[in-house]
């Protein structure tokens, strides 16, 4: 990681600024509704953009075949996430199926 301390401190300051923004400003400034609505899509967009390549292209290029064990294990994890809505069970299901697939295939 290049310039780790600089990167950490800048992101730390930006995160703090984001967190304190409306707590300090709200009395003076009404948030445009487009911004409020856009913020709702930040977590889903960012997190999906991170995990999809981890499943589809674990080696750097897209691989939609039965050889791609992370895609299979990820699919199982998605079902468990939908059913249980629980982080721990999702991780256990995903890691468990990855280990089993690596063992048998």
């Amino acid at each position: 990681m290049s310039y780790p301390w600089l990167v950490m401190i800048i992101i730390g300051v930006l995160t703090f600024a984001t967190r304190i923004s409306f707590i300090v400003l709200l009395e003076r400034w009404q948030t445009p509704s487009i911004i409020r609505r856009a913020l709702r899509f930040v977590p889903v967009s960012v997190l999906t953009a991170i995990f999809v390549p981890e499943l589809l292209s674990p080696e750097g290029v897209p691989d939609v075949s039965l050889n791609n064990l992370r895609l299979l294990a990820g699919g199982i994890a998605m079902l468990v996430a939908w059913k249980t809505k629980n982080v721990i069970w999702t991780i256990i299901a995903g890691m468990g199926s990855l280990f089993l697939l690596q063992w048998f295939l």
Partner: protein
Amino acid sequence: MKHTQIVWREFLSGVKDELPILAGVIPFGMIYGILALGAGLSTTEAQAMSAIIFAGSAQFMLVQLAGVGTPALVMILTGFVINLRHALYSASIAPYTRQLTLPWKALMAYLLTDEAYAVVITYYHQGDEHKHKHWYFLGAGLALWGSWQLSSAVGIFLGAQVPPGWSLDFTLALTFIALVIPTLNDRASVLAAIAAGIIAIVAAGLPYKLGLLTAALVGIVVGLWGEER
């Protein structure tokens, strides 16, 4: 009841209500510590990140980007976009923190994570108005803060001893799946997720690892578009 008794009661009930959430946070913190060392951060840097940034998903993402040699500016931009959601929490908490002094507001802001927000906003929405609810916030926030720092430290300690063959980096994708999938309850969110996923694959080759940022922005725009139709 005396003032100190009320304050103490509020603080402890904040801690108590945060406890069930800690069961999910502690493994998350440990995995962060393990991955941070795997990505080449020193133990000091990995622990400092938990204290300075104090935001799980941003820390996971930074560790992942660090592992593939992403330029500092792109890491900063991406971290900023990921943490933008805290502005939502800030706006939603703001009406309840108006009477507080600036140092208190700053402390609340530092502690305003996803998990603290979830617990605190429920309490603020409960009917009875009184002047000591910020002590509840402090209790919930500090319980989470302490667990995050400690579980990161345990992960950092373990990180040195986990063999790479264990594929522990996969827990990052799994954690994000667990956070995203249950929120896909409406069409606009589903469209945002699909768009972000497709662009993340298509734009993977963009220079300076800008693919993630591009995919996130496209997802947000598509979500807004889907909501209007």
